């Protein structure tokens, strides 16, 4: 166990991502004491949980709730936003690009917390990569559907075979220096106009 005393809380509405992050942290010997959502009364819950480190998805509006707790050090824990090394704007960029931020409650030292944020950044990045692959796959699928539809329209309107319709679109794409899927979109739009 590297640091069983640090109590980590995750605020992330994506359960698969927080599962993965929790596992990765556990593998490094860290303990996630709770996973909260924006629907919770965060101020009260973080106080009750005696959290030392809070990892927050940057897509969550709840970052601002944590920012405010900075002010309440007299009666409440005082989370402070942290980046891997504040003097280094590159680390801020890395966290921002990965879409994750972390808050450290008073007393938890930067050095102890740094590896936790590094794990979080790595996990968030992995999910980002996965997401963009998925998006790319989805786009390809949508493009393929568009091309099929445009082919069908050309076959019906011009009375040509499937191969001929495809050849026509390929030629248009080459002549106009455009992607086949863009040409297909154009064919569909024109057909809808008429």
């Amino acid at each position, binding site marked *: 166990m590297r640091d069983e005393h640090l109590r980590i809380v995750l605020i992330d509405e994506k359960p698969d991502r927080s599962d993965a992050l929790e596992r990765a942290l556990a593998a490094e010997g860290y303990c996630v004491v709770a996973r909260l959502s924006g629907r919770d009364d965060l101020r009260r819950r973080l106080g009750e949980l005696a959290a030392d480190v809070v990892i927050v998805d940057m897509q969550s509006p709840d970052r601002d709730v944590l920012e405010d707790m900075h*002010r309440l050090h007299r009666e409440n824990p005082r989370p402070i936003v942290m980046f891997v090394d504040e003097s280094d*704007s590159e680390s801020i960029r890395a966290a921002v690009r990965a879409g994750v931020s972390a808050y450290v409650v008073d007393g938890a030292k930067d050095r102890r917390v740094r590896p936790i944020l590094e794990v979080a950044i790595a996990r968030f990045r992995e999910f980002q990569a996965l997401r963009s692959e998925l998006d790319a796959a989805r786009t390809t699928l949508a493009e393929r559907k568009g091309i099929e539809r445009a082919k069908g329209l050309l076959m019906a309107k011009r009375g040509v075979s499937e191969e001929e319709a495809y050849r026509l679109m390929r030629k248009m794409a080459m002549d106009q220096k455009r992607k086949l899927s863009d040409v297909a979109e154009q064919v569909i739009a024109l057909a809808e106009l008429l």
Partner: protein
Amino acid sequence: MTRGVRGRVPETLQLRGHAAPRGPEKRQLVIGLTPLTDAAPILVARDHGFFARHGLEVTLSVEPSWANVRDKLAAGAFDAAHLLAPVALALTLGAGPLECPIVTAMSLGANGNAITVSRALRRRLGETACDASLADPMEAARALGRAIARDRARGAPRLRLATVFPFSMHAYALRYWLAAAGIDPERDVELLVVPPPRMVERLAAGGIDGFCVGEPWSTLAVQRGVGSLLLPTHAIWSNAPEKVLGVTQDWAERHPATHCALVAALLEAAAFCDAPEHRDEIAHGLVRSGVVAAPLPALLPSLRGILLRDDGIAPPEPEALPEFHVFHRQAASFPWRSHAAWMLVQMLRWGQLEKPLDVRAAAAAVYRSDLHREAAELVGMSAPLADEKREGAAPAPWTTPGTLGPIAMGAERFFDGTVFDPHDVVGALARCEVAHPLVRLDELAAAQRS
């Protein structure tokens, strides 16, 4: 935890001037904004071609939190941002978790916020004051003070009032209003932050008793029958500043012509936004583009200059408030250094600044009225000649001299009759009966050199 992002020191705060029209150094820009009605000029500049006309191609990034906008601006992920005006100051001074010098050459409008309470709290206020008098901020605050006293007598928990961010005009207006009636915002109520899109649900669930927030969230709370709009912040300080266009000082130094073009485009867009005949179109644009995730009927009233106020029992009555949103007229786009000085005094008053500072010098470093005038000249608009004014000193409309002729100004008044003189920040702070400063007045006085 407030070391500089770029490690810059204030000696570099003076930018060299530049002759306006030359090609922008950078044409493709990313601007960060938050889902609020007052982001309208930025959206309009994109969708109505004002950016394009000035050679700019702008991508908008709608952010769910002010912390994101701040971090992404400081980290260089954004070229510019729709920023809470006090955040520009806090970020420059390292009053929050980050320190990064910011400059603004443009305010993005005046007013636009309101204080809304739960219908239950509104009915309680109506028990000790007549409904007509509650439209008066002082009467409303006193009625709230009586409710607080009764709660305390019977051992009930403190009222919970939400704002959107600790460094915001919402927080300062709410605190100013409470304190003027002798209510200590630190002790007599519980102040907390709730993200704007969650305000209405939290009010409905009873998690909070009221909030101060930008539109459309107050109107939405009223239309859903969840809250009663008590006061527009216009009633607390009429024609008060709100958001600014913030860029890092470093970015401004590297892109003077782009900055000038950006402000010029936004000035034209802000003027477009002021025209009553464009207001419905703006509401449609904000909803259609997905910038504001609220139904269209929630955006229309404030943009049409209408306030929906109710007594917690009957349906709301529409009231005319033509200045609910002012985007450009009355020099609303001008970055008055006295606005910044007032905000800095509030930051001192509520213990957000730990060290004494030269208030007018800090205001001048961030609020670049000189850069504003260059951009205004580029688009043939008159800009005020003065950098600052006495705030709250205009009980009636007035005019101020401008670069291309006089500018008609609106009435400017604090509800308690206070006048804020940026040359007397120590006096302004000393006169605050309710305050929790961390800086001693004599230390503050010694720091005023400009």
